[in-house]
């Protein structure tokens, strides 16, 4: 198994390290031809407007990614990756892949002083019916998932009582989280994604 990590900008090195610790081969992706032999793709944290500008200038890499996702390649987007996969970004026409039926709000919690870490329940990480340990999650100028279509599967919420506080979701072969599991050393979400690839 070989997993690509989009390496145009952002914390791609942290994702590559997480894959290494999962004993899976990771490969930084900067150009279209590097996508040929990968089995799954991670889109890391970073600045979504920067990536969007790189979209405008080199469409071939994003066309190839879009085609591969449409033909079933699993993809996991963290924070910026979630924004880049969303089909609707509130108040913005910036470039995106637009493949997942979610509406996001960028910087949903406010500026950096509102960024936070927390321990959250992610039910899909439970094994053998046992309740899973809370996941140490870091939110950095994180987006909010405001709404989604019925085919989207909500996997975790920050606060169970607030409907729009979705922080992890999936749709077919696409997985997104608004936080960064690559920063806290807990490999369970990477392994969850790898199980989608297998």
């Amino acid at each position, binding site marked *: 198994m070989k997993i690509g990590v989009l390496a145009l900008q952002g914390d791609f*090195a942290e994702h590559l390290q997480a894959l290494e610790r999962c004993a899976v081969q990771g490969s930084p992706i900067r150009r279209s031809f590097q996508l040929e032999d990968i089995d799954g793709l991670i889109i890391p944290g970073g*600045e979504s407007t920067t990536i969007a500008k790189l979209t405008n200038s080199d469409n071939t890499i994003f066309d190839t990614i879009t085609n591969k996702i449409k033909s079933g390649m699993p993809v996991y987007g963290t924070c910026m990756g979630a924004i880049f996969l969303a089909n609707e970004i509130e108040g913005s026409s910036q470039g995106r892949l637009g493949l997942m039926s979610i509406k996001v709000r960028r910087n949903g919690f406010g500026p950096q002083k*509102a960024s*936070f*870490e927390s321990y*959250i329940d992610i039910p899909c990480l439970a094994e053998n019916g046992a309740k899973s340990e809370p996941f140490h999650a870091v939110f*950095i100028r994180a987006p909010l998932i405001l709404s989604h279509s019925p085919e989207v599967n909500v996997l975790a919420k920050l606060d169970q009582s607030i409907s729009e506080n979705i922080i992890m979701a999936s749709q077919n072969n696409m997985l997104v989280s608004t936080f960064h599991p690559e*920063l806290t050393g807990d490999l369970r979400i990477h392994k969850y994604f790898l199980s989608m690839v297998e």
Partner: protein
Amino acid sequence: MASITADKKGKKETGTLLVKKALPQMLKGGVIMDVVNAEQAKIAEEAGAVAVMALERVPADIRADGGVARMSDPELIIQIIKAVTIPVMAKARIGHFVEAQILESLGVDCVDESEVLTPADEEFHIDKSKFKIPFVCGARNLGEALRRIGEGAAMIRTKGEAGTGDVVEAVRHARAILGDIKKLTVMPAEELMTFAKNIGAPYELVKEIAKTGKLPVVNFAAGGLATPADAALLMQLGVDGVFVGSGIFKSGNPLKRAQAIVKATTHYQDPEILAEVSRNLGEPMVGRTAASLSETEMLAIRGN
């Protein structure tokens, strides 16, 4: 473990070291651009900057005009924050913790305690650990970098010589920092304390780097970068990203040059792309050689 997590569950902790160090991690592989107003900030965002750095005057003008350089007018910073969606950083004077408090209250995402502004304190830096937002600080060598990290900096950048358009000092500082890190990884354990003493760095940080082979925070290049090739040069030397100051808005075609530097920072290992983006960028900033500066004109010696 279970009891700790149960205790913390559902609580949002802001301003922790982990959260402060994570913002610069998201900026890696990107370009942070100096801007003096909202109009320039929009151009920087349009070009693909990962963040903008608000300051009163770009370093080339600070050099030309002389006088005391301070934090920007808060009104300008508010306008810049409103104009863009990317992170906004702003400069405070070395040791001027009140300017930093003001910047934090305005909602900037990161403070640069910067030698480019006139120092407010010639002996002490800001206690950066007290703040909820991250700080970036300049360094010429590993000792300076680790002293700043010891004070709570969540990001380091080379000082270079800002406002010159001459990349030589940024290269010198990047090589000094990265070279000493490499040296530490093969240094016998009994030599680490003396090494820490000689460079004036906290021993615990020296020990940590000897083990990990890297700084515990993100490390960007800054100070004199003016071309796409300059950005790629520093990236190939091993920094995580770049700051470009006067090099963009003192050039003939700021948007085009800024876009080219963004692409060069992404594709820094790809000479074909570097050649393509370097073509027809118009006039670069005029610049002056760092070697021609008198000692009073050198910014990098401030705040060591």
